[in-house]
Structure formats: C-alpha cells, structure tokens
C-alpha cells in the first residue's frame, strides 16, 4: 500500500491555489451525467452534497436518521474558529495554523492544516450569507469569544447552539438542491457496504431501515461523511446512533485506517449516575474559567462538600499547574481527574467525579454575574442531576467525545481506494493527536463546502470509468453479504441483549484504552475484546425481523463493527510507544508526569491495512515533516 499524500510542494501559502489550478475541470454540461454518493448529512456531508448539487452533479445523499437535520453536528455547543482577525488582536491564518498543529501535538500534516486555516475565513462569510444568526456586537458586527486556551479571540458562535445553526444552514442549502432536483435524499437508509469495481469505489449497498429492503446504488465517486466512532466506548457524548459501520466496511475493502487510538476525552461532563445510563452530557468547557476543581484530601471522605473544611480540600490542578491552574488543556485536566479518583478521592455516589465549585466566584462577582455567564449551563445541570450548582458544587467527570483518528486521506481527501473520499470527523486529517475546541465545525465545513467539490471534480475529470450498472456481480455479492450478516445476527437468539455486550465492550476500552494506557492494559484489552466478541456471535439476542423497522438489528450490526474497531484501537495504541496529545502511555512520561513525545521514532501517521478476518492488519507509516513549525514540548506548569 502506497501512502502518497499528493500534497503539492512550494511555499505553504500558495499550495491550495496551485493545487486548484492544476486540477482538471469537468465540462459543466457533463456534470449531470456523473453521480456522486454522499453518505452522512452532518456538516461535512450536507455541505458537500449541497455544493456538488449546485455545481450540477447528480447527487444521492444518505442518512440513517429520519431527516438530514438530525445529524450529530447539531449538538456542538461552543463555536467555530476562523482567522478573521476582526479584533486586531494579532490573529492570522498562520497563527491559526500554528495553534492547530501545536494543539495536535505535531501529529498532523502541515499542508492540510494550513489550508484549513486559510479556508476558515470563507466559511464564516458563507454561513453569514445563509442566515446563520451568529452573535453580534451592538454595532451589528460579528461577535467573537476566546476558547480553548487560544490567546486570540477567533471563535464565532450562535449562543450555545453553534453546531445546530451551522447544520441548519447546510441542511437548508441541501434542501434547496433537493427542491431543484439535483440532490436526491435517502433518509432512514443505512450504508452497509461499499462496492469496489476494478479497484475503484463505484457505489454502496444500503438497507432501508423502514422496509428492510437491501438496495444497490451506483456512482462515479463515493463520499463518506459519517462522523466519529466515540460510541465504541458505549458511554460517550456522541448521539446514540453515531457509528463506525460505513468507514469500517470501507476499511475492509482496502481503505487504510489512520491513528485509530487518537480519541479525545472532554474533561467536563456530567458523571454517570447509574447502570441504566445511556449517554453522557457535556458541559461547556467555559465553566473552567470561573469554577475551581477540587476533591477531598483524604481518600474515602464521604462528607457533603460544604462540611469539608478548606484545609482538607485538594485543588489539585491549581497545586500541580500553578500558572495554568484550572485552565490546563483538555487532556491534562481529564487525566488528573482520573488520577485522583483512582486514589479513592472521587466524589458522588460512584466515586467517579470531582467537584467544580463556583462558591468563590459567586462570592467575588455575585450570583447575578455568574448567572449571566453560565445560567443556561447551570439550568441544564440541575435538570439532569436535580442539584443546584449555585449552592452545591457541580460534579464533573471526563467522557469521550471526539475521534481524531479515521480513514486515511490524502491532500485531496481521497482514501487509499480511488474514488472513495472521506470528510469531516470520519477522516483523520487535520487534528493530529488532539483537537482544539471550536475546530471540529471548521473542519467539517471546510471539507464539505470548499475542498471536496474541487477534488471530486478533478478525480472525475481524470478517471476513465467502466460503464456498468447495478446488476454488476460486485453489487450482487455485496447485497448477498449484507443479507447474510443480517440473517446471522437474527438467527443467534442467545441470552444477552446487544446493549449488554456494548456496555461491556465500552468498559474494557474505557478502562484499558481510555485516558491512560499501558502495554499491559492494552494487551489485556485485546484478549478480553476477542473473548467477548466470540461470546457476542454465540449469545446475542436480537428480537424482531429483517423486513421492518428494527432498531435492535441496526444496533447489532453497528456493535459488531465496534468490536473489531476496538481491537484495532488497542493495537494502534500498543504500537505507539510514546505519549502524545490524547494518547497517554503511562510508560512514557516526563519526571513530573507529563506526556513525553518521541519525535525521532513516532513522527508519523499510523495507517492500518486490513488483511482478512483472521489476519493481523499491516501498519504503514506516512512520515510527518515540519518545514514551517518546529515541534516543541507542550508545558503548562
């Protein structure tokens, strides 16, 4: 397998211009003769489908939800970064590039990240023109806030619902194309296999989730915009339906999977309250601006927080990181919370939580100021926990919420299968080993509105495709495979539900391939996952039938893929003998307990190639070189 990033060479600020100039164009009159499949209708998918439709291609867009507007991009709260420098505070394309590359702990590709920073400014313009109600200053100009430790104010936002508003903008653009007839929408339809003919991606096989019908769709190019795989952990901040099935089945057809072990953990989520819990809810990171994080000094101290005197509290972040205190980056805050809970000092009924205390801030600024800043978040917290954060400290705990890893793509967002493009969270491209806040929305829209529409055209213009139709044997083979898998899952009729297995799988991966990893924990996890998977295929019970709406069956197929992906994550984490970004291997830390990167040996993208059901996958390395920014050690002391 050849990993050629195809990034042009030359001065970095000219690369994208140059690449666009070198791309071949499709004759406008011919565009409608080319069909492009877009799987997923979140920011990356809806924006791509809408733009390709505007250009005149014949687009088919698929989503498993009842409407494209439900995609999980909708849940993003904080905002979207752009190097507009509207405040004259020293921001620039180069600074956003620098922050993103450094934030990713130098495990991403310079040309891709630079292009992302360049395009960021166009995204804001496009979204404003679509009617996205961004926050405004009194003079009518766009408002900004700072976010995630950046020293400039470059985050655009629409209250706490930025993802919702950006997605609705893309959804509306998509519906406009549906109205024009250029995009055909297939909601409640799940992609269950990729079809590759003569080495080129030529279509997909889907299951209609209402009728159960398995169908083939032929195309000239396939785009996967199917989001991240955080649900491998069972409990995550992802939507319940978010899954890895599309990218996993593409992986099995030869698309390399890059950096699967890079998964991000968000430090401020509402802790688990019981074993019925189905998901975790994120609380905006901005709370750490005024809240102080602490646990009791003594292990097993079960007194209510207001009865623990000041000198028996450990404000551990302020103690360990005097200069950044409670504002250390996400990975550092998360790891420290786990460490104090592991020492038996965690709070709440489960002992898996730390206090986020606003009493000092309320004393200093008054209740009204705090209400103005965080009122909606406090309300949400109270709705879920029935505790009043104005009176009792909040309890928080880290949770999985983003996957930096994903299918490997080149500069043109094409995977190792020609004609298969991957965008948004589903690819690995821009965030390295750690994503900065307010950058996910930026990447999804950059890929979908401004990169893919050019690069797919270039592929189509350069490629001679064999004339085939949906009766081609590869489609028949894929359909038969999907039907067989469905029948197999329904036939087991064991004694455990899909969720029972999924919870256990998630716990193994959370414990052994979560915030802290060791060679030993990873090896043990691989063994446990294999055992549990074997049990799954013998003892899972899926009720209902294959020919109508069957939510258990949908889940069963997704969990089967999570088992395999979970194992690959552990394998990748085991192979990466260093700590970087969100990947923290306990064996590799500095004397004072911080992540120790090893640039000499591990400055590469790890891309895994599938070799067959009982074969070990093969690791390929794309070396990372840094011409513009010299890799440095992160320090927050």
């Amino acid at each position, binding site marked *: 397998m050849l990993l050629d990033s195809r990034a042009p060479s030359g001065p970095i600020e000219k690369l994208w211009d140059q690449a666009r100039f070198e791309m071949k164009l499709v004759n406008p009159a011919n565009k409608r003769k080319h069909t492009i499949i877009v799987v997923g209708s979140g920011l990356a998918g809806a924006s791509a489908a809408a733009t390709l439709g505007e250009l005149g291609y014949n687009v088919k867009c698929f989503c498993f939800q009842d409407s494209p507007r439900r995609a999980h991009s909708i849940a993003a709260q904080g905002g979207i970064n752009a190097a507009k420098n509207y405040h004259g505070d020293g921001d620039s394309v180069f600074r956003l590039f620098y922050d993103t590359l450094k934030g990713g702990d130098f495990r991403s590709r310079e040309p891709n990240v630079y292009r992302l920073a360049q395009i960021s400014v166009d995204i804001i313009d496009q979204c404003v*023109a679509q*009617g996205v109600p961004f926050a405004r200053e009194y003079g009518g100009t766009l408002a900004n806030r700072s976010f995630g430790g950046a020293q400039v104010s470059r985050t655009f936002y629409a209250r706490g619902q930025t993802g919702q508003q950006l997605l609705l903008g893309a959804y509306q653009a998509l519906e406009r194309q549906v109205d024009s007839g250029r995009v055909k929408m297939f909601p409640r339809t799940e992609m269950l296999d990729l079809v590759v003919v003569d080495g080129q991606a030529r279509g997909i096989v889907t299951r209609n989730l209402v009728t159960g019908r398995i169908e083939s769709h032929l195309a000239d190019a396939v785009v996967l915009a199917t989001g991240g795989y955080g649900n491998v952990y069972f409990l995550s901040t992802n939507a319940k339906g978010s899954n890895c099935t599309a990218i996993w089945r593409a992986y099995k057809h030869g698309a390399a999977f890059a950096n699967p072990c890079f998964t991000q953990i968000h430090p401020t989520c509402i802790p688990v309250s019981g074993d019925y819990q189905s998901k975790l809810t994120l609380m905006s990171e901005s709370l750490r601006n005024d809240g102080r994080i602490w646990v009791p000094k003594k292990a097993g101290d079960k007194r209510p927080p207001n009865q623990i005197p000041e000198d028996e509290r450990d404000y551990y972040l302020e103690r360990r990181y005097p200069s950044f205190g409670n504002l250390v980056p996400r990975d550092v805050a998360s790891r420290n919370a786990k460490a104090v809970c592991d020492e038996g000092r965690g709070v709440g009924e489960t002992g898996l939580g730390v206090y986020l205390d606003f009493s000092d801030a309320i004393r200093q600024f008054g209740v009204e100021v705090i209400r103005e800043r965080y009122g909606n978040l406090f309300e949400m917290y109270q709705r879920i926990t029935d505790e009043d954060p104005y009176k009792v400290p909040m309890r928080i705990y880290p949770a999985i919420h983003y996957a930096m890893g994903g299918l490997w793509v080149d500069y043109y967002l094409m995977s190792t299968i020609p004609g298969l493009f991957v965008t948004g969270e589903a690819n690995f491209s821009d965030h390295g080993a750690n994503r900065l806040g307010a950058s996910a929305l930026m990447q999804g829209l950059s890929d979908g509105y*401004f990169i893919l529409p050019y690069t797919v055209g270039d592929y189509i213009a350069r490629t001679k495709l064999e004339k085939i139709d949906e009766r081609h044997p590869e489609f028949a083979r894929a359909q038969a495979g999907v039907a067989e898998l469905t029948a197999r899952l329904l036939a087991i009729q064991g004694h455990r539900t899909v969720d029972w297995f999924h919870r256990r799988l998630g716990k193994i991966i959370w414990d052994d391939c979560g915030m802290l990893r060791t060679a030993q924990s990873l090896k043990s996890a691989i063994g446990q996952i294999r055992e549990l998977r074997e049990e799954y295929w013998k003892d899972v019970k899926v009720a209902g039938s294959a020919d109508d709406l069957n939510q258990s069956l949908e889940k069963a197929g997704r969990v089967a893929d999570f088992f395999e992906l979970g194992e690959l994550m552990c394998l990748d984490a085991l192979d990466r003998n260093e700590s970087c970004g969100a990947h923290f291997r306990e064996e590799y830390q500095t004397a004072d307990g911080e992540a120790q990167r090893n640039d000499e040996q591990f400055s590469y993208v790890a891309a895994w190639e599938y070799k067959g059901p009982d074969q070990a996958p093969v690791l390929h390395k794309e070396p990372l070189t840094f011409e513009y920014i010299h890799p440095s050690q992160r320090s927050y002391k």
Partner: protein
Amino acid sequence: MKLILHVWRQKNPAETGRMVRYEANDVNPDMSSLELLDVVNEELTLKGEEPIAFEHDCREGICGSCGFMINGIAHGPQAATTVCQLSMRHFKDGEELYIEPWRAKAFPIIKDLVVDRSAFDRIIEAGGYISVPTGSAPDGNVILVPKDASDRAMDAAACIGCGACVAACPNASAALFTGAKIAHLGLLPQGQPERRQRALSMVRQFNTEQFGSCTNIGECEAVCPKEIKLEVIARMNRDFIHASLG
C-alpha cells in the same frame, strides 16, 4: 420507584395499534424517560418480545428526533424539556404513564412511537433557505445585523423540528414550525430578497401536506421544548398576506 406504563404498540402503518401495559419495578428517579424505555426494552428482548420502537439520537434535547405524548402532553409535564431530558423524578411512585406517538394526519405512524415527519423537510425544501451558492458570499462584516434582530432571529431559529407543536395542536397545524423558519430568515437583512416568495412557497407547501390551519389556540407554544413564541405565526401571516397581495 415503580411506574405503570401504557404504551402504544403498532407493528406497522397498516395494522391497528393498541395500548399495552408494562410494569417498571426498578425505576431510578434520575433516569430519563428514554432510559426508562431502554430498561423496559431490555426485559422485552430477553422475553423474546419485540422492543418498543421510539425515535431518539442525541439525548440532549437538540437533535429533535425524540418525542411522544406522556399523559396527553407532548414531551410530558416539564416545560421546555424534550422527553430525552425528562427525568423520572417528576413522577410519583406507582404513577401510571400513558405513552403515545404524535397523532396527526401529516405524521403517519411507522411503528409504535415512531412517526413520519418528512412533511417538515418538504416545507423547508419549498423555500426555507436563503439562496446563496457556495463561494459567492461577501465578507461576513459587510452585512451588518443589528444585535436585536440577530437575537430575535436566533430565538426563532432555535426550533429543533421535533413536531410537538403539531401533536399538541387540536388542528394538527404546523404554523409554529413554518412560522419559526419564516421569522428566522425574515428578521435578517440577508433574508429580505426572498422574503415574500419564501412565505408564499412555504405556506403553500404546508397547506398541501395534511396539516390543519392555525386558529390561535396556543397549545404549540405551551409545549414547545425550545419556547418558540406565537409571534412567529403572526410574522408568517403578515409576510404571506403581503406576498399574496403582490
């Protein structure tokens, strides 16, 4: 705590549905109503019965997937809360809950609590957008938007398209949903060029679907989990009348 559930079960659109009684004996007051259904479903599956189908995705009140009637109220008794965020502590031990799907001709039942809301997509498709091809936008700050207009547009844009407004309305009207989008875009300078045509097309589409008319009852506002105000319907009517009179 213990709860008695009466849930609407309907295998498919063609079959007649009925209420089925279930007992939930080990309910944690912190559970959401969807987690309660998860627990019931686990038991049903192990007993070899089909689990209750219900729509859900983000489970944090923003995707708009979930929604059903609890004791006759869309999204249940707590104001401004979707069923995914409605916790069981709002009910008394031993209480009976009647859980039914949205009932409206325009939202045919697919299975159990799952209904077809694609009529909403068709209303947006008819004109719920600003026509701006990718790449053709001027700099974001060229279009100044008064803060007040932006805030009011955001109030309307907060709609999650869950359909509670239709389910609560005795006429099954989609006026609040349609009005919310017309108000959102019509309050912004960017939305002005297409404002009249948008109102015409969207209202026409809303009339061709099986929704009823608005008679200013206000149930929609009362149950809306995002607290969209009736005022958006007035804006819709105003824009529609202006457009109709040419």
